[in-house]
């Protein structure tokens, strides 16, 4: 199956690692879109650059990735979204940031640019403009007895900003349309010209709950570009951080999902486990969320004896408490009544969108970036991929439960095998060398993709793709036919990132 990616014809770019990048013709570009539409390739990312567009695709069977680039001297390129809907929002964002048109796209509305900026196309041929808000044309919904409920951007809880437009018939949701972009901070423009240190800090603040995953993927991309070998101890410490982050978020999510089904006991108990986890992280690495702990070349903080002791204490407590909570979840019929059969994502949709993380794995998509393409040290660690196929809220809870168990297992293995030695390697940047690299890391939410080009020791362009890009649209599909009151529950079971998506 590796042949599928090898068959992409184009001029190979030297200095792009670890996967190939090919400059392709318009015809090949369209051919790739057809392969995506046929389900033989999975879309990993679609982003702009000066004078060209890039598209990263994955051959899921083989775990191979390739980046195809299309030069566009005119600011237009053939739409991928026209053939393959998961690309539509990416193309809309690309237009807002770069001003390049996806010719033939079924949806040309703005996506990230809500009309509040005083610049158009900030990453392309930008021009100053007066901020101008034009009404956003929501998709029309027609029928008898329908009414609309607008929600957000300021929500009722301690949540990120976004707008949801519900069209309902009585209690039943007929359509949900999301409007995002409120958390857009211009991270990709800040990346341009930034030093590697600053780039790592920015990457680590793309989505705070996934700060480890982002810093990890960013570091992978830099190290691939510069052909840096990370010392073995740092490799293991990175995985340790990544699993701690996964644990903390999964504990928080399991509790919060149950809380949205009015089962506060689970929320309180899982909140305790989450707090224990972030405290252990602080004891090990000096920061509760482990921000700025992974840096290009290695890690910034070493693990000492006291840190190991706090991890062992955490594992002991979690292994004691968590099985009781799983039993509680499994045996509470009133809770199951809410989570089972609510918010179903069909497996075809999960596959089509290449949905990662618990959203994909709860709908039968057996994909985990730690397995394929795989990266160190996970290739040497023993763990199982959680997989369910019901696609409902319940399945997304169970994926998290199984992943908590696996992460605890992984922590034990990492501590057992943690090699001694240095924790960072020097980066061999040289003044005027132009190199490119990419990284793919399985965060708690799904696979985080980072692509960048370095000019000397500066970042010329960096693109960060959150897993939420391919999960948000599925939430729109999942809520259809459910009652309005189940939306918080469904939404929490997705727990998509606003900030990571809006950038």
């Amino acid at each position: 199956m590796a042949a599928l990616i090898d068959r992409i014809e184009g001029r190979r770019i030297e200095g792009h690692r670890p996967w190939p990048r090919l400059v392709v013709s318009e015809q090949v570009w369209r051919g790739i879109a057809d392969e995506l539409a046929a389900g033989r390739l999975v879309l990993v990312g679609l982003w702009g650059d000066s004078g060209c567009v890039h598209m990263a695709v994955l051959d899921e069977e083989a775990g191979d990735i390739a980046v195809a680039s299309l030069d566009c001297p005119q600011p237009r390129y053939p739409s991928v979204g026209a053939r393959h809907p998961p690309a539509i929002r990416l193309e809309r964002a690309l237009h807002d940031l770069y001003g390049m048109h996806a010719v033939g796209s079924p949806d040309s509305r703005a996506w990230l640019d809500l009309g509040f900026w005083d610049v158009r196309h900030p990453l392309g041929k930008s021009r100053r403009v007066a901020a101008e808000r034009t009404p956003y044309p929501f998709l029309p919904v027609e029928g008898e007895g329908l009414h609309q409920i607008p929600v957000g951007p300021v929500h009722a809880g301690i949540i990120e900003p976004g707008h949801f437009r519900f069209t309902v018939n009585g209690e039943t949701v007929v359509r949900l349309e999301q409007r995002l972009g409120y958390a857009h901070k211009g991270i990709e423009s800040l990346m341009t010209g930034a030093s590697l240190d600053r780039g790592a800090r920015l990457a680590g603040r793309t989505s705070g709950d996934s700060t480890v995953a982002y810093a990890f993927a960013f570091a992978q991309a830099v190290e691939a570009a510069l052909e840096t070998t990370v010392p073995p101890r740092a490799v293991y410490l990175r995985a340790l951080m990544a699993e701690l982050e996964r644990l903390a978020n999964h504990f928080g999510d399991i509790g919060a999902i149950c809380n949205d089904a009015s089962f506060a006991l689970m929320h309180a108990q899982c909140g305790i486990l989450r707090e224990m986890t972030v405290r252990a992280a602080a004891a090990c690495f000096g920061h509760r969320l482990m921000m700025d702990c992974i840096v290009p070349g290695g890690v910034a903080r070493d693990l000492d004896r006291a840190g190991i002791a706090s991890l062992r204490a955490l594992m002991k407590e979690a292994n004691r408490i968590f099985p009781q909570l799983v039993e509680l979840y499994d045996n509470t019929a009133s809770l199951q009544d809410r989570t089972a059969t609510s918010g179903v994502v069909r497996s075809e949709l999960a596959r089509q969108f290449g949905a990662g993380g618990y959203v994909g794995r709860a709908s039968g998509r057996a994909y985990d970036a730690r397995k394929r393409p795989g990266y160190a040290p996970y290739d040497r660690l023993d763990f199982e991929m959680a997989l369910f196929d019901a696609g409902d809220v319940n399945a997304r809870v169970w994926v998290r439960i199984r992943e908590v168990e696996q992460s605890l297992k992984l922590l034990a293995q990492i501590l057992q095998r943690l090699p001694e030695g240095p924790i960072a390697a020097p980066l061999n940047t040289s003044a005027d060398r132009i190199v490119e690299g990419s990284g793919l890391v399985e965060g708690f939410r799904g696979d985080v993709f980072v692509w960048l080009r370095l000019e000397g020791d500066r970042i010329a362009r960096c693109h960060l793709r959150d897993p939420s890009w391919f999960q948000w649209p599925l939430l729109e599909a999942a809520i259809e036919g459910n009652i309005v009151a189940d939306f918080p529950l469904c939404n929490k079971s997705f727990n998509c990132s606003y900030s990571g998506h809006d950038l």
Partner: protein
Amino acid sequence: MRKILFQSLVRRPLTEAPPATDEAPLAELGAEVDRAARCRLGRSLSIRQVDAGSCNGCELEIHALNNAFYDLERFGLRFVASPRHADVLLVTGPVTKNMREALERTYAATPDPKWVVGVGACAIDGGVFKTSYACVGGLSDVVPVDLYVPGCPPSPQALLRALLTLLKEAA
């Protein structure tokens, strides 16, 4: 479920009076918050959190205030769902331009007397996002700010301490 509930009857509570912070023991801090809140607001202070484009890191730590270790509600401090019910706006993020108007409208919807607390490095001056075309770059450019809680993100203890300071000044 019964087993877990019974256990919590016989186990000591997790809620911390004890852990000493650098500046003051949390227990003492808690007692002070309690006194000040009682004096000023009859033991009730309603907080509305607004995310003005943060990375979500601050929200995680604000969430933690509700867990069993910090248990914010024992001080009469609680999060409410609408700005119309709030005394305090707890605002995070560098105020993205896309969120500016929503923040202004939230502020306008909050009845007087009201206080604004800027949470995190971003709220102070935009933090790492300071120079972006998409960010206003500081909360005080949009609404009057009574207090900042520095940190990226600030710890739950720091947040608790800040709420005490605010109560003292407001009283």
